């Protein structure tokens, strides 16, 4: 067996970073950044999740095949979210006249 045995130090460092990031995201949520609150919260969440996957779950030390599978899973999640969102985003678009007459009005899309 030639498995990678993690060292304690990086594990503890990741743990500390995760705790700190949790604190940051909680603190930032109290500041009004408009729609950016969501963006910041998600960026921090993605960072935390990546840390867990990369070090705790050892994606860093796995084969290319496993990495490919992980990426494929995320891409498929992205397909589902993006195409579904495309429907909701464009559902209330309306156009007067012909599409090429460029009188399309964008409105009501939440």
């Amino acid at each position: 067996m030639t498995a990678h045995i993690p060292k304690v130090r990086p594990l503890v460092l990741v743990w500390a970073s995760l705790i700190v990031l949790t604190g940051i995201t909680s603190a930032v949520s109290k500041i009004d950044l408009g729609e950016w609150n969501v963006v910041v919260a998600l960026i921090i969440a993605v960072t935390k999740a990546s840390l867990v996957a990369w070090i705790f779950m050892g994606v860093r030390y796995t084969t290319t095949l496993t990495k490919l599978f992980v990426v494929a899973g995320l891409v498929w999640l992205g397909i589902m979210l993006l195409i579904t969102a495309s429907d909701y985003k464009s559902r209330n678009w309306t156009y007067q006249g012909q599409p090429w007459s460029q009188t399309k009005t964008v409105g009501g899309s939440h």
Partner: protein
Amino acid sequence: MAETVVPVTHEPTPEETHLRHHFATPEQQMDAATLGMWTFLITEVLFFGGMFAGYAVYRGMYPDAFASTSRYMNLVLGGTNTAVLICSSLTMALSVRAAQLSKRRDLILFLILTMIFGTIFLVIKGFEYHDKWVEQLVPGFNFRYDEAIQYAHNAQILFFLYFAMTGMHALHMVVGLGLLTFLLVQANRRVFHANYFAPVEMIGLYWHFVDIVWIFLFPLLYLIGQNR
């Protein structure tokens, strides 16, 4: 052309590595287990992904109603739970390391710690659910939303998603605790050592994945709208 590349016999396979009959080598067995576990985790990503898609759609439709619910979310309990789960992930990672190094006492210690953190999480979650019931925020069973009456309808969607998502997450935690119990019994029987630790590693992957789900649930359900 008669040649045998991989020596395979029908003799009992090496006890030590728990090699099953249909694998040629322990490496092949470990590779298969790893790939299988990751494939399973992908299915879990898409399973939770369905609910996240629902969340995204309705948050896009009713941002104000969703934000209005944040005052009913207990940031202290949610944040504590996040920290508790992160700690459990660390002890889980240390469990895997202990198994890889054949340190049985460490393995048992870290497994117990992981289970304690997991249980703390569920207990806190239980208190939160209880609070929601008392505050009449359980859609379908016990729901009143007097303070922000214009959001009363749409906020139900958020609370439905809250219970569906955290409930499904908690269910995964319970399953995880069961798996950890299994590991603890096995570890106590000296099953795991440097040449055989696949179950610890695989269940570890599962446990970390459940942690990742919470890492997304916490900001989406608790934090968004806190600025209002």
